[in-house]
């Protein structure tokens, strides 16, 4: 009998195999059917999930390679469930965004399975397997289906992330030889008293940090991201930002913070400095971009920076009170989810523009408001959500993060607020030159949103509003986990 989570992981894989063997004509439809199935399972998981219990739930445990302490252990807590739901949401969204070829659809499904695995695995070996498994389809998707400059971007992406992964693997081997276990929960329990000693401690910390920082990415390990996001097809960019980048933040929460609480306290100021650089420099760089996709990519770095700001602020200082810790953690979780939706939506809109115009430079458009008011209106909603306008989803997460981090690191937070301002400036400039001014001739033939596009964008936007106005249903997923983790970190 296959468990619920295993089924969730296997469904996209089955879809990929079906696409490969069956060679169906309409690959996207098949992929969407499998997505619907996995979404159904994800909802089932949500339904079975007991939101009041803090620990691991619906776990499946099988022996795998006992000699090295590797076992097949999957399960969900609030954070994992949140990310599983996000994955189930972003992938159909991405499939709807673009008519991908059969091979690309199969690769996307493999990536989806890997993401489900990453977010549910509770044993390092298994987790790492899925973590790396997502890398290969991402590489191939960029390399084969990417746009201009794809070879360079793909290799850079691969080498970069792979380098980070190797560092992390080495670090974990070190931990394994010291402690003899790969189990997350056991390791987290040992983390308090210090996992390792001497220089090895810092070596392991740096290795894991590097691996995750590249993935998120955190300044200054982010330079692969603009290239990769820029050249990848729209759907892949959406998945990269909506799913893959979350693996890094998830890793920080699940691995680095529980395993190295003492080291983070020492390295805290440096980490916060990097985060602030991420938050301030990324939107500034976004402002200077001419390519819309690159712009959104940079803003993505900025938004993930907020997640890490909250996380590092509460873990870097031992003085943080319970309310601040819980606020920051809730904010981080919510921000993860929000960013997944919002950034994917932004890439979706850039894709729509590119589809209509063939180009996506910010100067290639102008006066769209006259020609395509609906497109502009819905795109503005996504932009306002991204810049943290109250009433939309971005605001609550950011408010909670800043609330938590302000209490412990006021000066850092004050600088980070600049990031909010620069994000607004960037979006304002984009709106001005895309929507405003006289209608550019090359845009005069644009069609407004068609029915199928509306069907995609309206539910997503409604979700943004729902989270922005009545967020309780999202908080319910992870409140118990937040409480539990806050005790752990305190």
């Amino acid at each position, binding site marked *: 009998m296959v468990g619920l989570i295993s089924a969730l992981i296997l469904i996209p894989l089955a879809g990929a195999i079906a696409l490969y063997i069956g060679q169906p004509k309409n690959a996207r439809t098949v992929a969407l059917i499998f997505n619907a199935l996995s979404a159904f399972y994800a909802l089932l998981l949500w339904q079975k999930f007991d939101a009041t219990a803090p620990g691991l739930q619906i776990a499946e445990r099988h022996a795998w390679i006992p000699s090295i302490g590797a076992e097949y252990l999957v399960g969900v807590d609030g954070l994992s469930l949140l990310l599983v739901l996000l994955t189930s949401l972003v992938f159909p969204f991405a499939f709807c965004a673009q008519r991908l070829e059969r091979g690309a659809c199969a690769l996307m499904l493999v990536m989806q399975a890997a993401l489900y695995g990453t977010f549910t695995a509770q044993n390092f070996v298994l987790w790492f397997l899925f973590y790396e498994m997502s890398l290969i389809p991402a590489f191939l998707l960029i390399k084969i289906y990417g746009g201009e400059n794809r070879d360079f971007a793909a290799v850079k992406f691969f080498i970069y992330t792979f380098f980070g992964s190797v560092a992390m693997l080495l670090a974990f081997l070190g931990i394994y030889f010291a402690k003899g276990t790969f189990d997350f929960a056991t390791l987290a329990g040992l983390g308090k008293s210090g996992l390792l000693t001497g220089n090895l401690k810092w070596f392991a910390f740096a290795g894991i940090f590097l691996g995750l920082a590249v993935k998120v990415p955190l300044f200054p390990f982010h330079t692969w991201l603009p290239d990769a996001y820029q050249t990848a097809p729209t759907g892949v960019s959406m998945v990269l930002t909506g799913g893959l980048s979350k693996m890094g933040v998830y890793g920080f929460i699940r691995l680095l913070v529980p395993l190295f609480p003492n080291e983070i306290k020492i390295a805290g100021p440096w980490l916060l400095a990097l985060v602030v650089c991420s938050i301030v420099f990324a939107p500034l760089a976004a402002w200077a971009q001419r390519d819309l996709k690159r712009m959104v990519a940079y803003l993505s770095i900025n938004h993930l920076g907020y997640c890490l700001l909250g996380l590092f602020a509460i873990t870097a200082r031992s003085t943080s009170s319970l309310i601040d810790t819980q606020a920051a953690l809730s904010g981080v979780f919510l921000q993860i989810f929000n960013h997944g939706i919002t950034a994917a939506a932004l890439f979706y809109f850039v894709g729509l523009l590119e589809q209509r115009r063939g180009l996506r430079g910010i100067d290639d458009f102008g006066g769209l408001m006259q020609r395509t008011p609906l497109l502009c209106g819905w795109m503005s909603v996504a932009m306002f959500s991204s810049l943290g306008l109250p009433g939309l989803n971005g605001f609550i997460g950011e408010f909670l993060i800043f609330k938590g981090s302000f209490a412990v690191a006021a000066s850092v937070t004050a600088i980070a607020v600049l990031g*909010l301002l620069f994000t607004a400036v960037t979006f304002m400039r984009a709106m001005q030159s895309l929507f405003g001014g006289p209608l550019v001739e090359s845009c005069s033939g644009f069609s407004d949103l068609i029915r199928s596009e509306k069907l995609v964008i309206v539910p997503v936007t409604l979700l943004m509003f729902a989270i922005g106005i009545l967020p309780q249903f999202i908080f319910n997923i992870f409140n118990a986990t937040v409480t539990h983790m806050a005790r752990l970190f305190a």
Partner: protein
Amino acid sequence: MNSWITSNVWLIPAAPILAALLILAFGKAARRAAAPFAVIGQLTALTMSIFAFVPTLHSHGFRSVQNFTWFTFGEQTLRIGFVLDPLAAAMLIMIALVGLCIFVFSIGYMAEDKNFSRFFAYLSFFSGAMLGVVIANSLLLLFVFWELVGLASYLLIGFWIERPSAAAAAKKAFITTRIGDMGFFLGILWLYHRSGTLLFYDGGRGCLESVGLLALGASATFIALLIFCGAAGKSGQFPLHVWLPDAMEGPTPVSALIHAATMVAAGVFLVARVYPIFLVGAINGVTPSLTVVVWIGVATGLMAALIAVAQFDIKRILAYSTVSQLGLMMVSLGVGGVAAGIMHLLAHGFFKALLFLGAGSVIHGCHHEQDIRKMGGLRRLMPVTFSTYAIGMMALSGVPFFFSGGWTKEEILHATSQWPRSHIPYYLMLVGVFLTALYMTRQIIFVFFGNRRAASEHVHESPGVMTIPLIVLAVCAILFSVVLTPAWPWLENYLTGYPARFDPHLLIQPMIIVSLALVGAGVSLGIWMYRRAAGSDPIQQAQPALFRFLENKMWIDEIYDRTVIALAAIAARFSDWMDRYVWDGLVRGVGAIGHFLARLTTGADERVINAGVDEGTVGAHGFGRLMSRRHSGQIQTYLGAIALGMLALVLLYAWLG
């Protein structure tokens, strides 16, 4: 009904917002229904506001609070709520009433516009958000509505987004206010951190109540100043005032009016709402934060009044007059005259709305000409507009006895004169009053008197749908003074919570003589100076340098362009450059070192150097080629790499020891 509305006060902003959503949902199909929807929504809000107003009259210091949990995070809850007190109730009525007049006026003014329905959706949305600001009982909820007001103003300023100037003005407004809002946001965070709650009133535990205020301690000054940043951004206080005059790019009278009568009042309202925070640690009613408010207000008021003297655009004159009046209100709040400031805010809402609608009527009649030098002699052609405009002008100038503005201005001057710290603000305010009378006289002479000029041919009076709101507002501007007189200071006592008594002896105050003299001097000087001015300005001829300085708004925009904006743009380009060349260069450098070592082992020195140079120059393809080149196929290269790798491991092992 009365008690029902006090416990469901949220319905007041909900009505216009619902109307906005309905109009948007129907889209273009709702063109005919848009205006009725919006007007009904606004009318509902007004009715409910009046019903909400009634219970506040029953008892002095009435305050009804409904708090509820917005969401629970972890084990903590975030609570927000709504409050109804005299301040909120008075603001509600002013906003709803002025808003209704605008709505009706817009039906006529925007009749030709192809995005008619969208315009009404925005207007309703704006009105709802503004009403929400007023009744919020939580600084966070207030911030939420505050930002929504900002969004609505962005949408309305940029309503004619196809005009590049409108798009730029909208962007400028949003970003400038957002700069202030970032300060406000930090203030909220700080306040939340210190007091543990963002509710204003919460049965003694709110952040404006004694326990919450005690918890603030010395940080209260900073929190107050940060919140004031937000207020300064919204209310166009120096140095964040630059967006307000540009905001006149919106649909002529309507958007301008919103930025003149209601939205900009939000900043003043905010300061009044969180006034207890400003007062923490006050000695004689003076705190450092309030002192800052006073001086910023004085600087704004005087600067804007000076600039207004040298403008030729009918709307810009009014815009600067708004900035100047807001400065006045801020001074009033800063010196302790909270009630006076709010009274002036309410009165200003009416007469400034009147003036802007009048200007809109003039512009409409003059076929969208806004330069006052090209108008003239409109007095006979547009009699209704003229007479209502004259009432508005006198109210704004502060002519005593009959006009609301006169009474409130005196109250403010009175409060300022008693400020213990310094008398300079008082004298500067007197200069401001004089200048106001001067530039309003100048404007009215240019527009309505003298001979007809280029734009005043074929002028006609506006239709009834536009003039009736003018008349309503003019009546309001006069009648409102009934509750403002010192003889029966009903409104002041209503706001401060004391019962009002009628005492006719207090009608004549010494201040009224000063005020009368100044206004009289300003008006007479204006008449004397501009009487003969036909299409040109006497100051311009007498003092061209000074005039140019004022006409160009003291070059503040230009200074910002050269400093702040230029710096930010440089920072952006620098970030991008760092990213492309330094951070990415580091990564490529690491790759190049690996490549270099690999090459070294094959001993092809020339190729190493070439490849190194290539690496620096080829850029895009370099990395890919590099990766393939490193696989030279030569066994010795691999062996060398293995040896170095082993060495690295050995060293690592020894170091970890």
